[in-house]
């Protein structure tokens, strides 16, 4: 396969779109482009990346309106075809609202917005997004959200665990939002869709405090070029 090409989806109100593009294009050095919410095709792209932000102001529920964007049909198609789909923060919320990932993200237990460098652990390093990490590797990746409390039913949690769908957990005692089972990121059953509240694109340069997000991008790229 030729060099992979990333689509960074821009919803009205996305605000980490430029950060994601910068991380992929400039820091990692792989082809990436913005794709508007009203685009009807992802032709020519190999991965769909949903950035953080406040799509449509998050005025109804986080991600609830963005999931109806025209481009989401293509994102669904990508997911069905086994192509990589990734969402961080608001992107994760959109993927849950769209039904591409189980569960929902509710208001943090503290009821406050939290911006900090989270202590995150790799719960499963056998996904296409995490293969360049060690299992249980401790990472420092920023979080910034008010609605990041991952919630699923007990049955869904059992299923997630059984299927190894939990990709990242907050380290014990470092859960910033009250997520069930300290879950920070989950994949779909097939393993090609990942959503996580931490922002790997904010952890790609040591100058800014952490480069622990780099293996995330390199894992994904390796999985696409293998």
């Amino acid at each position, binding site marked *: 396969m030729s060099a992979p090409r990333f689509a960074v989806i821009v919803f009205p109100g996305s605000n980490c779109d430029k950060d994601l593009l910068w991380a992929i294009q400039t820091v990692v050095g792989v082809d990436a482009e913005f794709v508007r919410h009203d685009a009807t095709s992802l032709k020519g792209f190999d991965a769909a990346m949903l950035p953080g932000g406040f799509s449509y102001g998050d005025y109804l529920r986080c991600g*609830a*309106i963005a999931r109806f964007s025209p481009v989401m049909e293509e994102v669904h198609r990508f997911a069905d075809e086994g192509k990589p789909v990734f969402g961080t923060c608001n992107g994760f919320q959109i993927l849950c609202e769209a039904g591409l990932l189980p569960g929902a993200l*509710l208001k943090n237990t503290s009821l406050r917005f939290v911006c900090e460098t989270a202590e995150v652990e790799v719960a499963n390093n056998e996904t296409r997004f995490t293969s360049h990490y060690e299992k249980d590797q401790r990472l420092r990746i920023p979080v910034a959200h008010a609605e990041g409390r991952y*919630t699923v039913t007990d049955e869904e949690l059992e299923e997630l665990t059984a299927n190894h769908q939990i990709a990242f957990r907050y380290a014990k005692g470092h859960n910033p939002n009250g997520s069930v089972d300290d879950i920070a990121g989950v994949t779909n059953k097939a393993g090609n869709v990942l959503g996580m509240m931490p922002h790997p694109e904010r952890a790609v340069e040591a100058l800014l405090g952490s480069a622990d997000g780099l293996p995330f991008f390199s894992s994904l790229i390796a999985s696409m070029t293998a």
Partner: protein
Amino acid sequence: MPTSSKNYKVTVYVTYKESVLDPQGQAVQGAITRMGYEGIDTVRIGKYFEITAHEVPGTPIEQTVDSICDKLLANPNMETYRYDIEEDAR
């Protein structure tokens, strides 16, 4: 808007399912208790929508409202909803 068709006033209430933790509701409940009110058992916070609509032949209003609630206004993973429909003599 056709003048002969019926007009409706729809009110939709969306709340978290009982099983879902509602820290905002708990915070309000705590405040109520601290203010000294007695007899308050639980508080749950939800959303309230006021919608005006008119009759569309062939589609019952309930069907439209149900669909809007299922798809947009409530997240069935965590929320539940109910609504009232009143005929509106506008």
